[in-house]
C-alpha cells in the first residue's frame, strides 16, 4: 500500500552494504548500495531518495561533501552519517549543517533502523518497526 522508503547507502567498505541491505529490506526499504562515492553522487543526481546514509570518511570524497550535494539537489532528503570513530569536531560541524543524525561504527543494524524510522517519521511516511519480518 504505502510506497517503500527509498534509501541510498554509501560506504567504501563492503561489509556495510552486505550486512545492512538485508536488515533494511526487512523494514520495507528499497536500498541501493554504493561503494564508490562518485557513482553514488551521479545516482543522486538522477533520483530523489528519501534517505541517504553515507560514511563520512571515504577516499575519493567525504560524507560531508555528499551531504552538501544532496542538500542542494533534494532538500527534503534526510541524510544520516556513519562515522568510523566518534570525532567531535566532525559531529559538531555536521550537526550545525543540518544532517539528520549520525551513527558510529561499530553498530548493530537495528540501531540504524531506529534512526531510519525516525527519519521516515520526520518525512511524514512513518514505518512500523514492529512489522519486521525476520
Amino acid at each position: 500500500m504505502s510506497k517503500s522508503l527509498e534509501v541510498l547507502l554509501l560506504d567504501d567498505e563492503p561489509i556495510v552494504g552486505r550486512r545492512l541491505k538485508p536488515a533494511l529490506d526487512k523494514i520495507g526499504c528499497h536500498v541501493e548500495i554504493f561503494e564508490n562515492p562518485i557513482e553514488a553522487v551521479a545516482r543522486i543526481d538522477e533520483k530523489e531518495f528519501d534517505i541517504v546514509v553515507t560514511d563520512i570518511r571515504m577516499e575519493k570524497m567525504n560524507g560531508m561533501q555528499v551531504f552538501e550535494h544532496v542538500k542542494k539537489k533534494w532538500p527534503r532528503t534526510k541524510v544520516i552519517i556513519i562515522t568510523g570513530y566518534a570525532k567531535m569536531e566532525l559531529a559538531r560541524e555536521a550537526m550545525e549543517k543540518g544532517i539528520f543524525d549520525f551513527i558510529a561504527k561499530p553498530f548493530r543494524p537495528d540501531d540504524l533502523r531506529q534512526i531510519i524510522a525516525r527519519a521516515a517519521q520526520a518525512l511524514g511516511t512513518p514505518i512500523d518497526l514492529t512489522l519486521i519480518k525476520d
Partner: protein
Amino acid sequence: MHCRAVYGEMIMRILEKFKKITHKEPGIRDFCIQTIRFRKLLENARGLLALLADGNEKVLGEYILDRHYVTSLIDSSVERLGMMIYDACVLVPEFGETLYTQYDRHKRRAGELISQNSPSATKDMEANTNISSDPEYRLLSDVLTWLNGEPSDPGSTVIDFMKQTFVRVLKHIDTGNNSTIELLLSNNVSKAPGSNMFLLDLWEDAVVPSVKPHSPYAINCIPLKLLLMDADGDNLSPLLDDKNKTATWVATASEYQLSLKILEPDCSFHLEATVSRHEPSDFIFIFADTTINTENILPQGFHTEITNYGQLAWKLDTASKDIEDSLISIGRNLSPKTV
C-alpha cells in the same frame, strides 16, 4: 543500603581496635603513593578487560564494524598493556627488564596483526560462514586469540601476562623483603606490641597535615564500614581456619576506597574495593595465597583465576548494591560470629 548515614555500634567497636598510623611514621608517604599506583595498575588492567569484553561482544557477529575498529582495538590493547606494565615497573623496578621484554614480544605480535592483509581463518570461524566472508571479522577473531585465546604456552596471551604480572607484583610488595609495608609495620609493631590492626587515611596521612587529629572512627570509609557491618569484632582474621590470631591487618582508607592487607607469616590476603555508587568505578579485587580457601570467603558472582602464585578474584561492571552486599558477606566470612 545507605551506609553514608549512621555508624553502627558494632562498627564503632571494631574500629576502635584499629591503631591509627599517622604521618609521623617513616615511609608512610611512599606507602600511600604505592597504594595509589597499585590502584592505577588495577584500573589499567580493568581497561584491558573491558577491551577484551568489547571485542568478544562484537565478534558474535551482529555488528557492522570496520577494519579501523579492529586495528584500534589492537592499538588500545597495546597501549593499556603498556600502561599496566609501566605501573608494574614502578612498583617493582627489579622486574623491569623482564616485563618489558615480554611486552615487546606482544607489541611485535600486535604489529604483525595490524599489517596482515589476509589473516588466517581459525577453526572456529569456519563453522560460521557469515563471519568468514568478512576479513574484518577474521582479523577480530585473531586479535581475540592473541588477547585471551587458548595459550600454547603459559603467559603467551595478553591476559595471561596481565594475571602473572598482578600476582608477582602483589607478592613482592606485600611480602617481599624490605617491602614498604614491612618497614612501616616493623616500626609500628615494635612500638605497640599486641596491636595488630592498623588504619590509615590514604590522603590525609601521607604528609604533614593540618592541626586536626585523626582518630580511627573519624575516617569516613564506606567500603570499610560495609566490610565490618556484619563482622564479629572479637574474631577477626581466621584466614587459615586455625584461629591464628597473629595476623596483621592494614587498612588504607579514603571515602570510597579501601585497600586491605591481611598478613600472616606464610600467607597473605589482599582486598581492594571502590564503592562510590558510580558503577563504572566500583569494583572488588582480591588476591589470596594458594593456601587460603577462598570459597569460604567469597560470595557468588566473582570471576576467579588460579595461578601458581595465588588466586585472583574480581567483581566489576555490576550494580553498586551487588558490590556493597558482597563486601558485607566477605566481612562476615572473614570473622564468623561465634554462636
